[in-house]
């Protein structure tokens, strides 16, 4: 009889707590979004599965000795996984459109307003009972507005590790929702005439420019913002491997095998942070709400900046490309292209929107560096 009782006590059924069941359902929800709705499946699938694994009673996946515990501490707590992913993103990024039209860097800068404005929102949420965000927490939440998954995870792991799960879920969910969140804001802030604007064809960019660009960016970061060098440095390394043309094998590995392997572990590691006590609270709802606000403000400020630039510049600028300033490469650029085509079927904005899009990646890395330097210390 004793052994029967012992056996029963070792089953999942006997040990389940309500919170764990709810979090498993959240994990299933993420799996559903990934598989059925195709929302950022590369990350949401391992993340959802990680959430299920970490909430299994008795198994102890996220306790010392458990697999997810080590994955988290080896790769996310140290910041290694997001940085490796950033190197892969660098190896996939073509800065040609940005070098051809450098003014678009201003759009990437303007869209970062979403990040800094959200800081206010996060602090204001402290008026809600049950929510208590410090400035560090607020900064980590605000970076969701940068629409850059690895940057958000990197910053959250440094500033507010206890909020990492909710921040990563919000960041990736909203990135997947870019085609739904952005178009209404873009349409509301522009006129039909502005959306029809056709832009001048971009000049061809030489190989030497593409090789020197990442080195120049790195140099500037070293001089002005060393706290951003982990992100920018890895990004530039990946980009230099791509553009130099002499290490194709490394470049191919960085943008395929390496980034894929790291994505699996990053997803599982983030999933391990989706425990009931860390996720099922009012703060998570606050983070989800603030993420949407950050995204919308970023999009709006990018569009408004592009409108202003269009008025001042001698070359026409379609304000829609300003929305692509919120990184989310290349989805945001595709959205700008799509909304532009609705107004003018002969107007292909994709290449023009890639400029602010990659500028947004740099902008959010710089913003993360600033937050780390000012709040992290």
């Amino acid at each position, binding site marked *: 009889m004793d052994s029967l009782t012992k056996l029963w006590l070792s089953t999942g059924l006997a040990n389940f707590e309500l919170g764990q069941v709810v979090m498993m359902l959240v994990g299933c929800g993420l799996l559903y979004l990934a598989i059925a709705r195709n929302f950022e499946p590369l990350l949401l699938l391992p993340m959802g599965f990680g959430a299920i694994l970490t909430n299994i009673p008795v198994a102890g996946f996220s306790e010392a000795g458990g697999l997810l515990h080590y994955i988290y501490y080896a790769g996310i707590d140290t910041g290694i996984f997001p940085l490796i992913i950033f190197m892969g993103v660098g190896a996939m990024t073509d800065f040609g459109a940005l070098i051809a039209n450098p003014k678009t860097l201003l759009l990437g800068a303007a869209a*970062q307003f979403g990040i800094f404005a959200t800081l206010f929102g996060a602090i204001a949420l402290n008026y809600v009972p049950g929510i208590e965000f410090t*400035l560090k927490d607020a900064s980590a939440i605000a970076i969701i507005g940068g629409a850059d998954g690895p940057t958000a995870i990197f910053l959250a792991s440094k500033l507010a590790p206890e909020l990492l799960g909710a921040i990563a879920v919000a960041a990736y969910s909203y990135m997947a929702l870019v085609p739904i969140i952005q178009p209404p804001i873009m349409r509301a802030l522009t006129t039909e005439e502005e959306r029809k604007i056709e832009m001048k064809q971009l000049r061809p960019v030489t190989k030497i420019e593409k090789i*020197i*660009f990442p080195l120049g960016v790195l140099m500037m970061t070293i001089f002005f913002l060393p706290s951003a060098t982990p992100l920018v440095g890895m990004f530039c390394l990946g980009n230099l491997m791509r553009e130099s043309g002499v290490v194709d094998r490394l470049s191919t590995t960085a943008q395929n095998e390496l980034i894929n392997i790291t994505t699996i572990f990053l997803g599982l590691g983030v999933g391990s942070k989706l425990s009931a006590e860390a996720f099922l609270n009012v703060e998570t709802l606050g983070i989800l709400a603030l993420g949407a606000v950050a995204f919308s403000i970023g999009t709006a400020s990018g569009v408004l900046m592009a409108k202003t630039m269009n008025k001042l510049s001698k070359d026409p600028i379609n304000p829609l490309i300003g929305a692509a300033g919120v990184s989310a490469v290349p989805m945001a650029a595709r959205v700008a292209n799509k909304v532009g085509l609705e107004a003018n079927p002969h107007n292909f904005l994709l290449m023009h929107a890639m400029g602010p899009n990659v500028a947004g990646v740099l902008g959010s890395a710089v*913003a993360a560096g600033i937050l780390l330097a*000012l*709040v992290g210390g």
Partner: protein
Amino acid sequence: MDNMQQQFIEAGTLMLAGMVFVFAFLGVLIIFINTVLARLAIKFPDPIVVPHSRPNKKSKSTTSGDISPAVVAAISGAVKRYRSQHGQDK
């Protein structure tokens, strides 16, 4: 309450400093692209090697001027005969 006010002031300072810095950083990058990179592009243009030989090859095989008149006559004769034999208007 005082604490909240303090936090709001800190967030405001952070926002101002952050936005100024992001614009300044990316602004310097614009100057870098417009000066250093633009000059490099003029000094070291991409060598144009590949497109030179290909179009020539292609034009040789497609331009009718390069095909000998005898071959053209033979082909058109054959086509004419085929069409008349098969009664096709096409």
